């Protein structure tokens, strides 16, 4: 799973924008996940193969977002 974690420094608009760019999501879906990060502390952004998840984590970290990949238990 690709997870984005909350932090107090990234602007909400910026996070929404990054989700749109990295995943190609519409603004509404990107905002939904941004709100989940903000309100629940994290959001699962994708469930993918190891290789694809690594790619997404790299893309998100390029934008300095706090993103990691975790095992889907």
């Amino acid at each position, binding site marked *: 799973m690709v997870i984005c974690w909350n932090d*107090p420094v990234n602007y909400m608009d*910026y996070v929404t924008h990054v989700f749109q760019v990295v995943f190609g999501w519409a603004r509404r879906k990107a905002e939904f996940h941004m709100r989940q990060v903000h309100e629940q502390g994290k959001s699962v952004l994708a469930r993918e193969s190891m290789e694809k998840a690594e790619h997404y984590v790299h893309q998100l970290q390029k934008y300095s977002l706090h993103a990691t990949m975790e095992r889907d238990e």
Partner: protein
Amino acid sequence: MNLIRSTKDQFQFRLGGREKRLLLDLLKLYPCLPVARQPLSKSGGLPDQETAQGLLDEALAEQRQENRRQLQALLADPGRFQEQETGWRLSLSPADLEWLLQILNDIRVGSWVRLGSPEERLAQLDEKTAPHYWAMEMSGRFQMQFLEAMQGPN
């Protein structure tokens, strides 16, 4: 800084002389974020995690080197800022703008880390923390202006 014109290929901003200096001084702070801050996984337990972490670190380091090279080229490009009667005109492609957002956020988050990653706004600044606070706030301000320009009128 104001957006004065945008087409699908180019954004043009007007900046005062002080704003231009401020933006250039800010960009010179890149890279700000420590590479070691970015773990691939929190809980661990991924297959071959050490190798994967190594590859991620390597990719981010390469990216950072490329960004530094690109930033130096941008700062040295005389056509990028054109002097006008009322200040300066900055021209950027959509790709430049997207890339500058990453650079500015590295400076913003990196400055925040150097402040000790505070959860709340700092109550007091001193001569050690003030420069990092300034960089964090200013990079955020430019970021938001670039984002507004990219999103256009809603």
